[in-house]
């Protein structure tokens, strides 16, 4: 239960308007490309046109004749400095600039620097690279074939196999599947796609040769971790590196890794002693940085005739491209994919994943996702629908029958996660009611009689967010805590700094609301800063919906440290003992005598002017919060579609989203996050695809080919909520940003398959384009 605060205080639960809006609506945001420094020069990357080729020679002579040309950096130059390769976050390494050979189209080959942006691009055109083409491997299913070209000559193991990982009980699951009355099976590909934030990646690296200080303005979702990585890899003393993440134009996981372009800009700045700006073009963004998914999955569910599930077996092939640059900090090669039992009470489960190399861009990153939970949620929600069709059961009824019972939380799932809290039937029943589910089914039956195609898709997902507890997560050994430092000024106003970094989530508004809740200081009296490693406490950044579960916990705990000191000061001012005081947001008062009170503002002033003997002056605190467990938001989504038989076009008629993210800090912002995540889910289900032709040419490498939804294709979202607080989180919150993107793809696909299920259709891989649907209709003789 959250103590209600007044609108003036604006604690948790108030739909406070965003503070950050003022600069953005007036064109005064400060994104990386807006940073302009005196003497700044510009970098441009030369990229490989081939998917796999030996690098024979690089001739920079003509490039250096361009007026304004300053330098061309090649892999050989970096190799001389020991920087041709850099470690990835998951036990692999990747080339910064190619040496020996190139392994994917658009791989970084050289870095041109000039006084003007256009001149740097001219130089890149004039760098002559001689390649010898090599056989290309694009199909991950062929990566382990005996005749497959071995891509990574740098590795000792001469194979394209990266890892095998398994979890659960293989034998018991096998037995349960053999013994089951029914086994439902689905083969599903979660396609390679890209988060495509509207701002691409980029940086300004500014090495000052006089002070020895390197300042990097960086599109970074994790500025502190990036500072440490630059220090460890580049050998620059960490105190001499300052990473500033200014305003970020959307991240969605794209801006978690360190990319070669950043390293090149830093090297160029060190070499030239000038600030160097490098900003990706959109094609560079889509072709080389931050792909996601590319999981080729099979799920089998064994069940009784009455629909009770008995076991789940999952086998997956993961295509990581040329380098395993998975930007994920868990201790497991497939991240949190083992959450694949979802919302259901499976007695047995087994999951195995094999990773392989191909001639594609390296990755993958977690696109609005906690490290493969999206793939897992999609798979189980698809498989449950297939089981429902096999059993001729209603998919809602099947889910309700198999939900983890609400009284079984905390719930240890067969693959090892302990779910903190949940009430799945409550979310499902609300969604069914909002949708008018029974009427929809009746309408569908009538439409089918008339030969019309209408589908209803359900997804009852369980999320796993808030990376994470130190025993399960780290980045180069650094535990995945996050932090908050709060300073209360003498006048009772405050500044707070966090180790996270907003990219549109509204932290400048929501985190002050937590402090307002905990201390009663009006939220508008609190400034929040993030993203400058010279000023903010160390934290691991914003991705995987971790800011609220982790930094939110830190913010509440730092506030409580301040409240503890404030209590001592209040007791001193009121001349009573601490035990005689009671707290409500904004003041301490004497038990039984509420008029004898000291406000937090009076206490703040006293912290600098009138302290008890022996107490240190000031009123501030810092807290590093290592969460005891992850949080498990959940929800039920229902999608209604109509299909045009003539064109195969799918129209999303309605979409009902019931989310449970525990206690809510700002309902306006939560709803906005849900709208946005659902729209990204819509894009994945129907549009987004990065594919490669047989020669390794990337398809979908610009916004003319990589389709994203506009306002016209996007439906109105109908949102609802239930509230099941996290029992272990200081403010009972769970996080919400990625839930709609995790839960919705299955709802869209289930709806389309549902519309065609009476024709025997059981699965369609994403993206579901009109062309795909039209082909199915032709095959089934529907016109």
């Amino acid at each position, binding site marked *: 239960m959250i103590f209600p605060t007044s609108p003036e205080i604006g604690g948790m639960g108030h739909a406070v308007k965003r503070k950050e809006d003022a600069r953005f609506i007036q064109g005064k945001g400060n*994104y990386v490309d807006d940073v302009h420094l005196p003497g700044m020069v510009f970098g441009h990357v030369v990229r490989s046109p081939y998917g796999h080729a030996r690098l024979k020679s690089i001739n920079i002579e003509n490039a250096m004749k361009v007026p304004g040309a300053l330098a061309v950096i090649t892999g050989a130059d970096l190799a001389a400095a020991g920087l041709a390769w850099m470690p990835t976050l998951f036990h692999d390494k990747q080339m910064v600039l190619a040496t020996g050979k190139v392994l994917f189209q658009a791989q970084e080959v050289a870095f041109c620097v000039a006084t003007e942006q256009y001149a740097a691009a001219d130089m890149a055109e004039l760098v002559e690279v001689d390649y010898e083409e090599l056989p290309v491997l694009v199909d991950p299913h062929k990566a382990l074939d005996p005749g497959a070209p071995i891509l990574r000559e740098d590795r000792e193991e001469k194979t394209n196999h990266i890892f095998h990982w398994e979890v659960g009980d293989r034998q018991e699951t096998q037995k349960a599947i053999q013994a089951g009355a029914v086994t439902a099976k689905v083969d599903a590909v979660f396609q390679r796609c890209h988060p495509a934030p509207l701002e691409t990646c980029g940086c300004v690296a500014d090495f000052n040769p006089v002070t020895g200080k390197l300042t990097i303005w960086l599109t970074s979702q994790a500025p502190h971790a990036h500072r440490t990585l630059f220090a460890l890899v580049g050998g620059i003393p960490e105190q001499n590196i300052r990473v500033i993440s200014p305003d970020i134009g959307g991240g969605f996981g794209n801006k978690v890794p360190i990319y070669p372009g950043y390293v090149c800009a830093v090297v160029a700045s060190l070499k030239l002693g000038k600030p160097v700006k490098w900003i990706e073009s959109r094609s560079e963004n889509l072709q080389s940085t931050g792909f996601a998914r590319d999981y080729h999955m099979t799920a089998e569910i064994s069940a009784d005739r009455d629909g009770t599930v008995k076991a789940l077996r999952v086998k997956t092939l993961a295509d990581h491209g040329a380098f395993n640059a998975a930007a994920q900090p868990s201790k497991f090669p497939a991240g949190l994919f083992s959450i694949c039992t979802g919302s259901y009470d499976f007695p047995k489960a087994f999951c195995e994943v094999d990773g392989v190399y191909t001639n594609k861009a390296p990755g993958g990153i977690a696109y609005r996702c906690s490290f493969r939970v999206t793939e897992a949620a999609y798979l189980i929600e698809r498989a449950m629908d297939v089981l429902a069709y096999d059993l001729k059961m209603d998919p809602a009824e099947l889910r309700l029958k198999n939900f983890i019972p609400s009284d079984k939380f905390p719930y240890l799932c067969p693959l090892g996660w302990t779910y903190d809290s949940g009430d799945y039937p409550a979310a499902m029943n609300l969604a069914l009611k909002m949708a008018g589910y029974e009427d929809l089914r009746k309408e569908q039956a009538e439409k089918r009689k008339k030969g019309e195609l209408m589908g209803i898709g359900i997804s009852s997902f369980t999320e796993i967010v808030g990376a994470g507890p130190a025993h399960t997560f780290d980045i180069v050994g650094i535990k995945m805590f996050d932090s908050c430092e709060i300073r209360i000024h003498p006048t009772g106003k405050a500044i707070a700094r966090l180790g996270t970094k907003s990219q549109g989530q509204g932290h400048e508004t929501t985190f002050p609301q937590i402090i307002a809740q905990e201390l009663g200081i009006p939220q508008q009296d609190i400034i929040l800063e993030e993203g400058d490693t010279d000023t903010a406490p160390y934290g691991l950044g914003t991705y995987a919906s971790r800011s609220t579960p982790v930094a939110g916990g830190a913010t509440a705990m730092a506030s409580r440290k301040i409240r503890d000191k404030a209590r001592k000061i209040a007791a001193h001012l009121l001349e009573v003992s601490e035990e005689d005081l009671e707290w409500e947001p904004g003041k301490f008062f004497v038990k039984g005598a509420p008029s004898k009170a000291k406000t937090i503002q009076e206490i703040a002033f006293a912290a600098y002017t009138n302290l008890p003997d022996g107490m240190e002056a000031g009123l501030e605190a810092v807290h590093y919060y290592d969460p005891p467990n992850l949080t498990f938001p959940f929800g039920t989504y229902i999608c209604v579609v109509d299909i045009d038989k003539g064109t195969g076009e799918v129209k999303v008629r309605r979409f009902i989203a019931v989310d449970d993210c525990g206690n809510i800090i700002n309902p306006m912002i939560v709803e906005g996050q849900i709208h946005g995540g659902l729209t990204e889910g819509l894009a994945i289900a129907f549009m987004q695809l990065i594919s490669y032709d047989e020669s390794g040419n990337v398809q979908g490498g610009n916004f003319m080919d990589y389709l994203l939804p506009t306002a016209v294709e996007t439906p109105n979202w109908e949102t609802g909520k239930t509230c099941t607080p996290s029992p272990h989180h200081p403010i009972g919150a769970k996080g919400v940003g990625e839930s709609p993107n995790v839960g919705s793809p299955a709802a869209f696909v289930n709806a389309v398959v549902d519309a065609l299920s009476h024709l025997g259709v059981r699965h369609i891989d994403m993206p579901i384009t009109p062309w795909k649907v039209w082909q199915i209709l032709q095959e089934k003789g529907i016109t």
Partner: protein
Amino acid sequence: MAKTHHVHIQLNGGTKEADVDPRLLLIHFIRDVAGQTGTHLGCDTTSCGACTVLLDGRPIKSCTFFAVQADGRKIQTVEGLTHDGKLHPIQEGFHQEHGLQCGFCTPGMMMSALALLEKNPNPTEEEIRWGISGNLCRCTGYQNIVKAIRYAATKMQQKGAAA
């Protein structure tokens, strides 16, 4: 180096003169030559609309338009929306209705909204959705942008009626 051209461009009520390379894109003129960085570059291919500005009152995508083409003409960007320190109703609408998150598409989106409302002061939801269909937003799912533009339409009509 190609011969430069001297251009006068009326930008948000002032005039910016410069000798420019004929290939200089208008977006780079606005951002780098005139130093008004509110307009953003999102895709380079006229697809996303982050760079939308008004050219003589009509929306164009400044990433595929040369600065020399704008010589002698009038450009309005997000920086030209605020008057005498007062927010334009479209800016107010985006704030009140939570029509933005990361803010990167917002300047271009607001310029498209302005062009729409000047042509059609009382658009339906469908007309709004088509009116901004050249502008991508990756954060909001558009629903609150539609509301923001409705808010602005109502406010602008009230103002018009009062005047």
